[in-house]
């Protein structure tokens, strides 16, 4: 009595799905013993000899040499002298195509039952609990975004007063300015407008340069500009009477809840950079809350207007009263900054302005 046993492409590793039939070591009709090599297969650069599981005779060679065979598919049929265990659950084994007809026809062991399908759990994408985002451009704390979304407020209309120009929750809650805020804003605006009015008819000229600097922070730029003015006293004169100013006073423009605030830094180029940076940081934060120390409210001899946080390149340059220079710093392409200088032509010549800007660029 003999038994037909299909010798299959063996699974040789956890990840193997197919193997290449390299060669048969036997031919039809050969008598083989248990352990004799029947054929050779290769996968993932590993080749392996497949041995006969029992004594018997080779009945049929099924595969084609060089062909790729799925694991579990028969490669050779052996007529064995003794019964060899072989399992084929009839159904589709995991990740395998259906067994070929030839296997179904084989009178192997009566172990033919259905393989229950492995149920793959349906994976539900996790639902992210994210706050409603009104704008990507403006920084705002989560609760400010939630509050804005709930009340239909456009965050772009909110003046940020938090660190790094972040809209805080209180900014949203207090977005409707108070009576006092409105009054102070109006007074501020009138003051600035009157000043600009005074300088409107002054003959002015503007120059712009694009420059790449290693440190583009406001303190560094402010300090460099003060140094230029110190070396060019003719540009640090009073716009009232042309008298020399005893010090360099750099005004900056800060947006606050009471309108524009203009703190003045006196002789910033004489401070070391760490001290100046700290001073600018604390002063700016205080100014955003409408608080500027008394000592920093006067004495400006020039103005530096940093437009970069508004992603602007430049604005119409204007001189403030009694100042003969004004500098605006804007964004430029490729990480560079745009530096624009406006001068009062009553006290300076064109080449004074061009030279000062050139010196500033060199200083930077």
């Amino acid at each position: 009595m003999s038994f037909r046993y299909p010798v299959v492409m063996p699974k040789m590793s956890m990840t193997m799905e197919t193997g290449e039939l390299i060669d048969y070591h036997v031919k039809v009709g050969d008598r083989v013993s248990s352990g004799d090599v029947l054929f050779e297969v290769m996968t993932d650069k590993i080749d392996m000899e497949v041995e006969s599981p029992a004594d018997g005779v080779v009945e049929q060679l099924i595969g084609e040499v060089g062909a790729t065979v799925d694991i579990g598919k028969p490669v050779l049929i052996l007529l064995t002298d003794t019964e060899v265990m072989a399992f084929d659950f009839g159904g589709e084994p995991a990740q395998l195509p259906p067994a070929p007809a030839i296997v179904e026809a084989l009178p192997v062991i009566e172990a033919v039952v259905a393989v229950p399908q492995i149920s793959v759990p349906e994976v539900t994408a996790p639902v992210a609990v994210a706050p409603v985002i009104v704008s990507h451009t403006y920084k705002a704390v989560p609760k400010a975004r939630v509050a804005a979304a709930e009340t239909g407020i456009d965050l772009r209309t909110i003046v940020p007063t938090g660190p790094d120009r972040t809209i805080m929750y209180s900014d949203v809650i207090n977005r409707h300015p108070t009576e006092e805020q409105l009054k102070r804003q109006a007074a501020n605006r009138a003051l600035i407008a009157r000043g600009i009015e005074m300088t409107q008819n002054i003959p002015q000229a503007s120059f712009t340069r694009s420059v790449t600097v290693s440190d583009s922070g406001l303190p560094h730029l402010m300090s460099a500009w003060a140094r230029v003015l110190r070396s060019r006293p003719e540009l640090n004169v009073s716009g009232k009477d042309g008298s020399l100013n005893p010090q360099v006073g750099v005004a900056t423009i800060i947006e606050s809840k009471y309108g524009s605030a203009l703190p003045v830094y006196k002789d910033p180029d004489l401070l070391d950079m760490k001290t100046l940076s700290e001073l600018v940081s604390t002063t700016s934060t205080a100014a955003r809350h409408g608080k500027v120390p008394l000592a920093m409210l006067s004495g400006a001899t020039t103005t530096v207007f940093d437009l970069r946080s508004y992603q602007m390149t430049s604005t119409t340059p204007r001189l403030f009263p009694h100042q003969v220079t004004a500098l605006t710093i804007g964004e430029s392409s490729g990480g560079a900054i745009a530096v624009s200088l406006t001068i009062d032509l009553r006290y300076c010549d064109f080449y004074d302005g061009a030279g000062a800007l050139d010196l500033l660029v060199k200083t930077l």
Partner: protein
Amino acid sequence: MSTDNRMLTMAEALREAMGIAMDERPEVFILGEDIGIYGGAFGVTGDLYHRFSPERVIDTPISELGIVGAAVGAALSGMRPIVEIQFSDFTAQAMDQIANQAAKIHFMLGGALHVPLVLRTPQGSGTGAAAQHSQNLETWFANVPGLKVVVPSNPADAKGLLLSAIDDPNPVIFLEHKLLYKIPGRDPVPEGAIRIPLGVSKVVREGKDLTLVATGIMVNKSFEVAEKLAAEGISITLIDPRTISPLDMNPIFESVEKTGRLLVVQEGPSHGGFINEVIARVSESSSFGSLIAPIKRLAGMNIPIPYAPQLEKAAVPQIEDIEVAARELVKSWR
């Protein structure tokens, strides 16, 4: 309950808990290095060797892998071992038994067996013992599913939590800050077998301006800061999770929703630290929408703990750091 004002040290409280558990259950025993006549490297087992017997307070050779493995085997066989590892740093020697065996047996074996094991070990810096005796390792263990991780911050909690840990049918890693051993807590330690369930965060004090989550010794430092800042009008909710794993986030969510500000503090290095899990869970939750300030964390530097006292101090958060961070969060963000 004769006295309600017993001010014990954490070492005394832990010893009391072990004594109670050994009186209650014959299957509880302790094994570890120098825990017998010596009384433990930090004196935690103290006189238990004399109160019980050498069979129940077993002195072992210096053999961390062997004794943790033996504890796992005993736990699988009806015992409730408490292993003391002299310094948490040495758990590295026993990590196969902790992480691959004890932690996984219940799950991996389909629930057929379980490992009621407590591994007690001191951790933390501040003793000048340098890099191999000073680590905070709760994150190692919290990252292994199957381990419960307890980090007590005071004697009363330590006692109640240890009693629950011994009762627990699962492996529990109990990490004790060595600077806390010798100091009494703020609260008295209740007498008797008062248990504190694992997986319940404790609200140490309540406030409305800031939620401060801290673990282990950082709870004590944070408490001092909270008291000090109260005088400045800054009111702080301080939460001690007590159990790192499982982690009870509910009081943290509730508090963040009230205060809108979150500061988390741990002594261990920040990279991959436990506090990041707290932050991640807040970020994933609806409490995120309540934040009115960026979340701030304070943790150890990402360096081995150095030796010299000034270097060691610089490596982990100090009271002043917590104070500055708390004040800054509340003052700058409204």
